[in-house]
């Protein structure tokens, strides 16, 4: 085990390449269906994906549009002219023997991601096609080309991260940007996002970066975080022993929790890049970009700014942002409540419901699209006016998920409206206080053990079948006992 002191001497530098699958209807260069989830192998392919002789790629304009959207979300310069190149290597998952990518002139230029105090510059992002998939069965390997040709935007960061946590923060924000920009479903389970992480280690204060290792094909935020943590220690150990870090490609073994060497620099392939003669350059006009800009929805940082007044913790903010539907509802609620003098309090209450009820393990996967914002506000107001207990409010909240719009009617129908009318409550309290059950509690209260009032409130709640407003009941009990006391005295 390496000592903390040793680790403290070093700093790591991280750069990340993230592949995002764009959610176009068809593939980047063919008309085949781009959604191959749960499909029979090779059922979503065309002669183009299969690289038959004489087949030519035809660029999918929708992929260009989605790349521009994600580019704008990355605060990036959109290049008005970009080009495609061929990257050659032989592997059975690459039918043409080359991948069409953008090596020399990518579509997206420099940009940045700025989230929760982590600022990462984006070097560029380029369009390229995904490869197929191999399944190894004993001695043989099976080729499935369903994924071959799926459009990817590869986002290449600058080496601006220095901890596993910041790497994870960057990756999670990329996912949000991909989703909010509408470019991708960014579903990690389906491999919609994959990460290659470059890590080097150098002594703190050293101006020169160390030799980097690249950990390829990480498919979850957790594996990014774990791999970075592992790699930092591995590289520091090497340096402490006076050895050198080798420039190489490594893989992450989830089960072992280790990175393992795959290919050294010497074994690296020569991709023999060449301009793609079959696809003319992509030329965009400024008007096209302006139009997309105008259509862009509010991005995570836009929501964060609107929510700032709520003073929510970063983790709460991100949890809500990770459910885009709820995030947009929350922003819309805040906009609606902007002129309401109790607005902030109501919004906070609603935020609590989001975090504690809707995003609970039990409900988080539900569809929140039908949730009516006005109804939510009304529900919050009913609680504020003590017309509903918080328990009842939660019950109604779940009913609103079906698109119901009138929480008051629901409360009435379900008989959940709280009784705050003091006349009615006084009758109940009187009944409770007269009951022999209460005698001891009353005595306790009189002798100063004010806590005993809870017992009496409980009895009153029971008597009201839960509809009584407990705080009003408590006030009435206190008042009555004081009166009783005065009489006794």
């Amino acid at each position: 085990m390496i000592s903390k002191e040793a680790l403290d001497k070093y700093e790591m530098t991280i750069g990340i390449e993230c592949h995002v699958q764009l959610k176009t209807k068809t593939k980047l260069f063919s008309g085949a269906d781009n959604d191959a989830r749960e499909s029979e192998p090779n059922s979503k392919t065309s002669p183009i994906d299969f690289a038959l002789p004489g087949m030519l790629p035809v660029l999918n304009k929708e992929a260009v549009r989605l790349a521009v959207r994600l580019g704008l979300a990355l605060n990036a310069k959109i290049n008005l002219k970009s080009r495609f190149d061929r990257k050659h290597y032989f592997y059975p998952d690459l039918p043409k023997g080359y991948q069409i990518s953008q090596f020399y002139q990518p579509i997206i230029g420099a940009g940045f991601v700025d989230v929760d105090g982590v600022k990462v510059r984006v070097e560029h992002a380029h369009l390229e096609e995904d490869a197929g998939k191999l399944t190894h069965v004993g001695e043989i390997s099976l080729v499935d080309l369903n994924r071959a040709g799926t459009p990817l935007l590869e986002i290449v960061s600058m080496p601006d991260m220095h901890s596993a946590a910041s790497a994870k923060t960057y990756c999670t924000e990329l996912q949000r940007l991909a989703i909010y920009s509408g470019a991708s479903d960014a579903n990690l389970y389906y491999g919609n996002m994959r990460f290659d992480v470059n890590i080097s280690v150098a002594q703190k204060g050293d101006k020169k970066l160390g030799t980097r290792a690249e950990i390829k094909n990480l498919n979850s935020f957790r594996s990014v975080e774990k791999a970075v943590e592992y790699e930092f220690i591995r590289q520091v150990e090497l340096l402490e022993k006076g050895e050198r870090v080798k420039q190489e490609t490594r893989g992450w073994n989830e089960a072992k929790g280790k990175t393992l060497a795959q290919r050294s620099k010497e074994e690296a392939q020569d991709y023999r890049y060449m301009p793609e003669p079959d696809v003319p350059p992509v030329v965009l006009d400024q008007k096209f970009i302006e139009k997309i800009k105008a259509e862009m929805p509010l991005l995570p940082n836009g929501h964060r700014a609107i929510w700032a007044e709520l003073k929510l913790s970063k983790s709460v903010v991100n949890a809500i942002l990770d459910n885009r539907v709820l995030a947009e509802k929350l922003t819309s609620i805040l906009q609606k409540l902007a002129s309401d003098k109790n607005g902030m309090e109501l919004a906070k209450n609603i935020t609590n419901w989001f975090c504690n009820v809707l995003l609970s393990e039990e409900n988080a996967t539900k569809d929140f699209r039908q949730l009516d914002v006005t109804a939510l506000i009304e529900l919050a107001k009913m609680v504020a006016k003590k017309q509903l207990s918080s328990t009842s409010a939660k019950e109604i909240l779940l009913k609103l998920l079906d698109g119901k719009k009138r929480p008051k009617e629901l409360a009435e129908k379900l008989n959940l409206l709280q009784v705050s009318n003091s006349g009615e409550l006084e009758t109940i309290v009187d009944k409770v206080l007269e009951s022999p059950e209460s005698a001891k509690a009353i005595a306790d209260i009189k002798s100063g053990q004010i806590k005993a009032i809870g017992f009496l409130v409980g009895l009153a709640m029971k008597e009201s079948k839960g509809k009584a407003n407990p705080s009003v009941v408590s006030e009435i009990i206190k008042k009555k006992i004081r009166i009783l006391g005065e009489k006794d005295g």
Partner: protein
Amino acid sequence: MMGKTWGKIAEMVAAVQKGEVSARANVEKALDLAERCKNYNIFVNLTRKRALQKAEEIDQKLQKGEKLGELAGVPYVLKDNFLDFGADTTASAKMLAGFVAPLQATAVKKLEAAGAICIGKSNLDAFAHGGSTENSFFGVTKNFKDTERVAGGSSGGSAVAVALGVAPFALGTDTGGSIRQPAAFNGVIGVKPTFGSVSRFGVVAMASSTDTIGCFATNAADARLVMKVLGGKDSLDSTTIDNDFTPRGKQKLHIGVIADFMTDDVDQEVLAVVRKYIQELEKNGNRVETVEMPLLKYALPVYYVVVPAEVASNLARYDGIRYGHRAKTARTLGEIYGLSRDEGFMPENKRRIMIGNFVLSSGFFDAYYLKAEKVRTLIVEEYQKAFAKFDVLVCPTTPSTAFKIGENTDNPVKMYLEDVMTVPPSLAGLPAISVPAGRTKSGLDVGAQLIGARGDDALLLDLAESVENKKLKDKNI
């Protein structure tokens, strides 16, 4: 040699449309001629069954009174690097022997829609690599006049088919001269259009940035008719453009004779014949002047950097995994790749793959590929300068007449030098046609090459047609 077996295509179509000659009769005649020409090794496969069936369909259409297309009932020969039904698509390579195309090339589809009927797939240098049709897995195609001489290539089979009158026209592909040179060697007209004029979809790729689809015919009017059907934008090929092949009606053209290709490096007899053709152009009232184009001599070395690079890339898909030849003895992935490609490719294919991968490899890319592309731009500019002054440029199609079979086999550089005059327009994407200019004393055919500015294909056909008409007139007087 059978001489003229077909009239002009327009007349043939009229006869079919009037019911005077059936499509079936045309197809049967072409198939019969094909059989009689077997010793020239024109075909990789005949498409007899499908051709007769298509002819039947046209004849029935006529009976039902339906409108027939502009090439109704005209048999033609298709180079075997076009994907089509009815026979394998082999590109004359072992790699693709037995490959059954699941679809048709756009060019083939268009011809079929116009009523033209493919009677067979013609031989070529494997993957169109070569200028003699000697590099074919299916044997050498012979010159139409002298079976000891080469047909030229790579579209040798198609050129000889038209020269022998098996069919009135044939399709070829031209990347650096593969239509023009065999046209010159076999005394027919060969059209390489402006890059992008005809869709490349469904044609086995050689070099994507210079591959063009064109035709062979016995006269300019026939060639124009075919090019009109073939041309036009295709959503399946992003590099296609609309191009107008109709006559321009421009009378006196300003013609530039490329001085750099009229030198002692060219066979003296070839020069004499081409000079005579140029005199005819002048007699027809065109203004002829000499033009120096010193950069064109760099086209050949540029071509043999850029084209092998694209060739190496385009042939990467032939890996023995999904289709095509797979070595029977291969046990590992490396062996599947290595042995299948070793067995499936011809030596000329391998030579180009190696040159291509070399010029693309890291450390050499800038010195070779990038530099070549820069020179290519200069060549394009040199043409632009020339076309600012001239309507059409002219030079010989080839530096010599058809050479003996086997003569250049051991000297690839000499073979490449055959392309020295056809390659420059290819690099610049310009239209160029080879027209029969006459014969040498020993009776071998010589081609004159007419080159136009981008999109001026029609002008070249106009010029060729005017010379043909003049000759006919002179004959009749």
